């Protein structure tokens, strides 16, 4: 499978569909050719130097909540 990492969009160069992203202080230039409507501050999934998708903050929160509930619900189906 494919190693893809979420990183924050720090700046965008629309002239060549490139962006600077950062991950905990490490910055890299990547291509936005595969995604639309990306804004500074968005988080995107980076694979081989390209953004594949935006990460949904809402969905991420909901997923984490599901994990946290696990201990509470126990065996209840």
């Amino acid at each position, binding site marked *: *499978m494919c190693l893809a990492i979420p990183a924050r969009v720090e700046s965008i160069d629309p002239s060549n569909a490139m962006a600077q992203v950062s*991950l905990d202080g*490490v*910055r890299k230039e990547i291509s936005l050719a595969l995604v639309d409507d990306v804004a500074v501050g968005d988080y995107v999934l980076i694979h081989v130097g390209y953004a594949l998708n935006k990460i949904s903050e809402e969905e991420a929160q909901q997923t984490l909540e599901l994990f946290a509930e696990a201990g509470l619900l126990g065996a209840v189906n």
Partner: protein
Amino acid sequence: MNSRDKIDMTHGGGGRAMAQLIESLFLKHFDNELLRQGNDQAAFEVAAGRLVMSTDGHVISPLFFPGGDIGSLAVHGTINDVAMAGAWPLYLSAGFILEEGFPLADLERIVISMASASREAGVPVVTGDTKVVERGKGDGVFITTTGIGRVPEGVAISGDRARPGDQILLSGTLGDHGVAIMSSRENLQFETSIRSDSAALHTLVAAMVAASGEIHCLRDPTRGGLAATLNELARQSGVGMRLRETAIPIRPEVNAACELLGLDPLYVANEGKLVCICPPEAAEAVLHAMKAHPLGREAAIIGEVAADPYGLVQMETRFGGHRVVDWIAGEQLPRIC
């Protein structure tokens, strides 16, 4: 020196060009009493006792990277190899193999860096050699350094002395050097403020040895990272090791760079860190001495030695499971999968 000047075959020919190069570059910057004698060898007295000798070839690329260069790396690396025996380094030698066409300005930059590292560490370069090879037969410059040192009375540090129950100490953050190198490599370009941790560790070692005469093993986790070093020691001593991932110090930026490239920080090179294995009763004193030293501020106890017929280095993951920290075949490469 003319900035357009390059190394050519006459610089290695043994004639006037070579003598001029040696004088205007090597002798000028390394300058010390022994070198000034102008012989092909350095003669000196040493106090009676046990001597240690170590040698290293440096073939790295890129030659210049954030936090250092091949020159300072060579000096630190050999001083550290000597220091890992608990020895106090006395003298260094430096052999240069230069490629025809190598810019003299770069060579001077490297030599100045070496001289500075050597002076700061208090370990002079007392003898050396220069050769030139044809274009295409060398990667710019190869440097070989050899160091000798003296082991204080009563110190017996060796890779085969680790025993079950011993504590494993690490002097600081992992992966800084490897990440700094990678950020300078072509086709991997990423920006980071991470600099190589390249440093001479002999004063740190001296402080540790002064704190406790019970240290069993010392080693610096260079190529292959902490994983390679611990596996080597485990094999030499016939033991296993148990680490705790949460105890291992790693800078967030180094972690991030490793995530981006698909690398495991345990396998990334360090050039200014050491691993120490000592009995549990000595651990606290040694740790205290490490933390009091500028190069050991982030020192930590990261695990312990265990009896293990398979000699495995295992780690309790931050997640609560276990994994084996194996010896990998060859250098760790970035991955896409």
